[in-house]
């Protein structure tokens, strides 16, 4: 009875559950939506960080822009190769500060391979795009046949992945990026070449014109400070034949644009849900005032002041908001978490869930907002109830 508010709530479970559900819905929308927005932003940021290069050059047969999409968002790089000589020429383009190359291949869903994966070979001496990430997660150099796996590849450290009948030991797992790099397998350029040999020995036609020892798939360029990136890309396109140079910036901006659109939609939805829920809550609380007038007149008769009366009501809505808010956050979190893959696929945007501390912060913020809005929506009814004309209500007979 020191907990009159609790008793009021438990005595009318139907009413309490209805109001509580509304609040659950509210906090679920806010928390789930915020996590989604944060995840999309995180995905973009991580993509931006991974794409440390200003310009990516691929053979024109790769139809660069779609392949960039493939490379980073959909997970199939396909096979495309150019001569090492060409790569060297590209690296020597005026205005280029650093250059590195990578070589791609894919394993098959066949008896020779344990699973179909993208294999990305990096040149550890010159790489500046993937290396920082590897250093973060792994911190050593890779030996021959050693592979690192992205966070979504189903293989643990100590196990090995069989690619074209070659067993590659998994030496490390990389942190999630929210991009399709998470489904990739990383190794040295030499390892990829070895695997290419193994593949052709098994009779697979990899459409390599020339010696596997002498090809690369893509060249990554970092432009010197102060040099116009577009002019470097243009120069490559003019002077080197049959390759296509793409600015990563424009690619990222493209993603950022569609992300902005999605984000705006989510935000608008959240705001709509909130306005709607706030109005419904307010209506619900106000509708309940009539029903509760007599109850509050009795409390006034036995000496409860207006302030205390308002506080009892406020506590009721605070309790409702607290429990509803927590349940909503848990549900919202669980939903976003379990539909992560679906959301990612549907939006085809990089999606990287924030870390525990940021999730916690978002949860606390959601709870604070819910616990402000809940009581606010009951404020009108609290005020009305605390002003009940006791004389009149008592005359009406309790």
């Amino acid at each position, binding site marked *: 009875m020191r907990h009159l508010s609790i008793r009021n709530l438990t005595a009318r479970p139907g009413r309490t559950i209805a109001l509580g559900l509304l609040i659950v819905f509210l906090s679920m929308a806010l928390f789930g939506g915020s996590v989604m927005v944060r995840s999309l932003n995180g995905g973009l940021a991580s993509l931006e960080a991974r794409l440390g290069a200003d310009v990516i050059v691929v053979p024109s047969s790769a139809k660069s822009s779609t392949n960039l999409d493939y490379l980073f968002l959909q997970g199939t790089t396909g096979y495309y190769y150019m001569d090492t000589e060409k790569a060297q020429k590209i690296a020597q383009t005026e205005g280029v500060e650093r250059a590195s190359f990578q070589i791609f291949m894919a394993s098959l869903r066949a008896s020779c391979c344990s699973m179909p994966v993208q294999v990305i070979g990096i040149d550890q001496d010159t790489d500046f795009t993937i290396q920082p990430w590897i250093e973060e997660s792994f911190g050593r150099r890779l030996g021959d046949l050693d592979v690192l796996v992205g966070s979504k590849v189903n293989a643990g450290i100590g196990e090995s992945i069989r690619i074209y009948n070659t067993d590659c030991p998994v030496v490390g797992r990389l942190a999630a990026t929210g991009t399709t790099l998470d489904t990739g397998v990383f190794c040295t350029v030499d390892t990829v070449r070895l695997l290419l040999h193994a593949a052709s020995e098994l009779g697979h036609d990899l459409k390599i014109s020339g010696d596997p020892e002498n090809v690369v798939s893509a060249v990554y360029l970092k432009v010197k400070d102060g040099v116009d990136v577009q002019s470097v890309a243009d120069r490559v396109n003019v002077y080197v034949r049959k390759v296509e140079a793409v600015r990563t910036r424009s690619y990222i901006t493209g993603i950022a644009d569609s992300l902005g659109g999605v984000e705006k939609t989510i935000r608008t939805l959240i705001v709509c849900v909130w306005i709607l829920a706030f109005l419904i809550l307010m209506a619900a609380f106000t509708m309940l005032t009539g029903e509760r007038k007599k109850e509050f007149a009795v409390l006034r008769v036995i000496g*409860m002041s207006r302030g205390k009366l308002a506080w009892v009501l406020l506590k009721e809505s605070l309790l409702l908001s607290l429990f509803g808010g927590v349940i909503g956050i848990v549900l919202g979190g669980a939903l976003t978490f379990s539909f992560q893959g679906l959301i990612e696929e549907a939006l085809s945007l990089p999606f990287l869930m924030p870390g525990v501390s940021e999730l916690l912060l978002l949860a606390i913020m959601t709870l604070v907002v819910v616990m402000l809005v809940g009581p606010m929506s009951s404020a009108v009814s609290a005020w009305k109830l605390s002003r009940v004309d006791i004389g009149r209500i*008592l005359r009406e007979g309790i």
Partner: protein
Amino acid sequence: MKLRCEQLEMHFFRKTGDANFFVAVAPLSLSLPEAALTVLMGRSGSGKTTLMNMLSGLLRSTSGRVFLGEDELYAMDDRTLSRYRNRHIAVIPQGQSALPQLSVMENVLLPGMIYEKDRRQDAERRREAAEMLEQLGLGALLDVSPRELSGGELRRLSIARALLMHPDVLCCDEPTADLDDENTRVVLDILKKTAGDGCTVFMVTHEEDAVHYADRLYRMQSGQVTEEK
């Protein structure tokens, strides 16, 4: 403590005849002695409840003043007056006034818990409440919900709740309405005894039997009060 009013008057805004307000209680000065049962009788609509509510601090009058001892009720702000009422003035309203979400026991304990935060007295209070409910014939119903009680039982519950406040003033609005003779006698005896213990008891009633219990008797007609005993 003595309850008294000076030139207490109540108007309600309502078009009646020439005036656009209706006089529910005409200017009235009255003094209710302590340790006495004062009874107010009158026809329905004569203004009894209005007067009682004003005297008990529940209804601010149009004009005039109400004093309990030296304290002027309507000079206090809501917080002070609420607390003051909780301490000194118990009211048994017309009709039923139990909170359905609490048990019978919790209902009678409630007034004592609004301002008293000291839990050490809980056991003592419960014991006293149980005794009181037992006396009023509700001993077997401590833990049931008021929803399960009859009209007479609900009335006795209101009385128990009021008495447990150990008030200086007890105001009851038709406490014996819709009670049978047996119950009416029980209630009137309790009120008489409460007055005997030093409380200022003010009862509004239709019950002619109450005349025999009254130390003082007033009659009310169209807002006018006349002393009869």
